[in-house]
C-alpha cells in the first residue's frame, strides 16, 4: 500500500515505505498494557487505590440518588450537576476573589470585598449548608410539580435542570477544568505508586459523611418520617407526616450530599461545568446495579465502578474511558433485564 506523498515542505521528504504510518493502537496497545500490569504488579496497586478513592465518592453521590429515587420516585438526572456545583463552590472559596457589587450605571459600590481563602476541606460545612438551601429552592420551583406525574416527566425535568445548571456554571466559572488545591503532600511508595494524602483524607471524609447520613436516617425523627413516607406515602400522611416537607427535606439532603461529594471530587479529581452528565450516569449505574435500599451494595458498586474505570482507561486507552462508564450503564441495564425476564417481568 503505497501512499503518495505531496510535497508540502521546501525540502525533500524522505520516501519511506511504511504503510503503517499510523500505528493502530488497538489490540497491539492493549496487550502491551496488560503486559505492563503483569510485569509491574505495583501498577495494579496504583490503579486499585485510585479507583477506590474516586469510587468512594461515586458511591456517596449514588446514595443520594437512591434516597431521592426511593422516597420520591424522582430519577434525578441533574445529580452530577449538583456534585459539580458543590465542587465549584469549594474551588471558588479556595482562592481569594474580589467581589464587587454596585449599582449599575453609577459609581456607587455597595460591597467591595475580597473573600478570605477557605481551605476546601474547611469549606465543606459551608458548601453543605448552601447546597441544602439550593436543593430546597429547586424542590419548590421544579421538583414539587413533577412528583405526582409520570416517570419520564421527572427525568426530563431534571434533565432540563441539568442543562441549565451546567450552562450557568459555564457562564459563571468558564469552561476550563479546575482543581481545588488542597496543598497536601504526595507520597511515593516503591517508586511506582504515588498516593496523595488528600485522597486518603477524602476517603475518610466520605465514609464519615455516609455514616452520618445513615445514623440520621435511622435515629432522628425526620429520618423516620422519610423512611415512613418512602414505605407508604398515604399512610404516612394519615399518620400526620407532612409529606411535602419530607420530600423537600429529602431532596435538599440529596443536594447537600452531592455538594459534599463535589467538594471531595474537586480536590482529588477535576471539575468542569459539563462533567455533570457523566457523574449522573455513574450514579445511575451504581443504583441500578445495587438496587434501592441496599447500602452495602451501593458502596461495593461504587468502588467497583471506580476501579473498573481506571483499569479500562489504562488498558484500553484514555479515549475509551468515557465509553466505559456508558458501556457499564448499558451492560447493567441489560443484565437487569435478563434477570427480570426470568420472572417474566419488565424492568420498570
Amino acid at each position, binding site marked *: 500500500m503505497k*501512499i503518495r506523498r505531496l510535497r508540502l515542505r521546501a525540502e525533500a521528504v524522505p520516501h519511506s515505505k511504511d504503510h503503517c504510518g499510523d500505528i*493502530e493502537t*488497538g489490540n497491539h496497545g492493549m496487550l502491551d498494557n496488560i503486559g505492563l500490569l503483569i510485569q509491574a504488579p505495583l501498577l495494579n496497586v496504583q490503579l486499585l487505590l485510585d479507583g477506590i478513592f474516586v469510587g468512594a465518592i461515586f458511591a456517596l453521590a449514588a446514595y443520594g440518588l437512591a434516597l431521592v429515587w426511593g422516597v420520591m420516585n424522582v*430519577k434525578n438526572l441533574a445529580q452530577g450537576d449538583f456534585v459539580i456545583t458543590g465542587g465549584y463552590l469549594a474551588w471558588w472559596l479556595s482562592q481569594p476573589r474580589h467581589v464587587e457589587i454596585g449599582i449599575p450605571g453609577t459609581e456607587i459600590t455597595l460591597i467591595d470585598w475580597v473573600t478570605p481563602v477557605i481551605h476546601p476541606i474547611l469549606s465543606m460545612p459551608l458548601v453543605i449548608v448552601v447546597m441544602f438551601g439550593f436543593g430546597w429552592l429547586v424542590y419548590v420551583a421544579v421538583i414539587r410539580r413533577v412528583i405526582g406525574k409520570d416517570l419520564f416527566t421527572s*427525568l426530563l425535568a431534571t434533565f432540563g435542570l441539568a442543562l441549565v445548571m451546567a450552562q450557568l456554571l459555564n457562564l459563571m466559572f468558564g469552561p476550563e477544568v479546575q482543581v481545588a488545591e488542597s496543598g497536601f503532600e504526595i507520597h511515593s511508595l516503591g517508586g511506582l505508586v504515588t498516593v496523595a494524602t488528600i485522597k486518603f483524607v477524602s476517603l475518610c471524609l466520605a465514609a464519615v459523611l455516609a455514616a452520618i447520613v445513615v445514623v440520621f436516617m435511622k435515629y432522628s425523627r425526620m429520618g423516620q418520617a422519610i423512611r415512613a413516607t418512602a414505605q407508604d406515602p398515604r399512610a404516612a400522611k394519615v399518620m400526620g407526616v407532612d409529606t411535602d416537607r419530607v420530600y423537600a427535606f429529602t431532596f435538599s439532603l440529596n443536594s447537600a450530599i452531592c455538594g459534599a461529594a463535589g467538594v471531595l471530587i474537586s480536590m482529588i479529581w477535576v471539575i468542569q461545568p459539563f462533567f455533570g452528565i457523566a457523574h449522573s450516569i455513574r450514579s445511575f449505574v451504581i443504583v441500578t446495579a445495587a438496587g434501592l435500599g441496599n447500602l452495602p451494595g451501593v458502596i461495593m458498586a461504587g468502588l467497583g465502578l471506580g476501579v473498573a474505570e481506571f483499569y479500562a482507561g489504562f488498558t484500553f486507552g484514555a479515549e475509551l474511558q468515557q465509553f466505559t462508564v*456508558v458501556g457499564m450503564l448499558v451492560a447493567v441495564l441489560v443484565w437487569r433485564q435478563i434477570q427480570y425476564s426470568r420472572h417474566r417481568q419488565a424492568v420498570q
Partner: protein
Amino acid sequence: MNLVRNPVALYGGILAASIAAPLVFPDYTFQFSVLWVMILFALTWDMLGGQMGYNSLGNIFFFGAGMYLCAIIQIGLYYDVAEYTAASGEIKVDITPPQYFLGLFLGIVAAALANAVFAAIFGWVVFGLRGPYFAIGTLGVALAAGELTGAWQYVGGGGGISLPVYPGEPDERSLFFYALCFLMAVVTFFTLRKVYSGRFGLAINAIRDDEAKAEGMGIHTNRYKTVGWAISAFFLGISGALFGNMIGFIEPLEVAFPTVTFGIFMVVMCLLGGKGTLWGPVVGATLFHAFKEVTWTYMLGWQWVALGALIIILVVFFQQGIVGWMQEKWPEMFGIVVDDKLAASGPELDDRPRRSEAAQ
C-alpha cells in the same frame, strides 16, 4: 387516532410555501433544510415517544449511524477508507459527478436499511426496559456509540471524515439538498399518517396505554415495538446521510451523535407541539427551530440556559403541547367525540397518554 380532516387546501398551502421559501429567501436555504430535518426528527421520535409511550433519548444513534454509513459508502466505493482517513490524509480525492450521485444514492439506501436492522437488534436488547430505564438505556447506547466511533480509526476516530464535495454550483447544491430534505420529511409524514390510521396505530397506542393488558389481549407487543422503531430508524438514517452531506465534514461526538443537543431537541419539539398527535411534532419542530435560532442570534451565551428553562417549563406546565392543548379546547375539530357524562367527571380527554400509577 387524531386525524385532521384531510384538507387539500392545507397540504397545498404548505407545499406552495415550502417550494417558495428557498426561492424567496435563498440565503436561508440551509436553515430551511435543517428545519425539515428537525421536522423529521420530531415525527420519528413521536412514533415511539408519543404514540407508543417509549421515551427514547437515544434516537440520535440512528442519525449518526446513517451519517457514517453513508460516508463510508460514498468514499469506500472508490477509495480505501482507512487510507482516506489516515491522519496524514494524503490521498487526493477526485470523484466524478456520476460517481458522486451513485455513491450518495447507495449511501442513503444503505443508511436506511442498515438502521432498520440496527433498530431490530437494539430493540431486542432494550425493549425489556420500561419507562425511565428505557430512556436512560437508549441514552447510554447513543453516548456509547459516539465514544466508540471516536476511537475507531477506520473512520478517522476523533478526527472525523471530510465528505466528497458536491459537483456543481453552491446554489444548486443548497437547493438539491433542500429538495431532498423536504421530500424525506414529507414521505415520513405520509408514511406515519398511513401507519397510524390503521391497525398498527391502534396497537401501538394500546401498548402506550397499558402494555400488560395489550399483551394479555394477544397483541404481539414486541413485534409492534420493533417495527415501529425500525420505521423511525429507517427515516432517521436517511436524514443522517443527508445532513452529513450538507455539512461536508462529520465528526463523531458533535456532528454525528450529538446526544445532548439534537437528541434532546427531538423530545422537546414533540413536547412543545404535542405528543401523540400527528401534527404536533411538525408544529413543535417549526416553532422550536425558530426559537433556537432567535436565542442563538440574540442571546449568545445564554441560549442553552434558555433551552433548559424551556424544557423545564414545558415538562412542568405544558405537557400536552400546543396541539394537545388545541385538542382540549376544540375537540370537535379533531374528530374527537366528548361524552358529556364522562366529561363531567373529569377534564381528561381520552387520547392523551394515561398516567401510570404514581406509586410505581
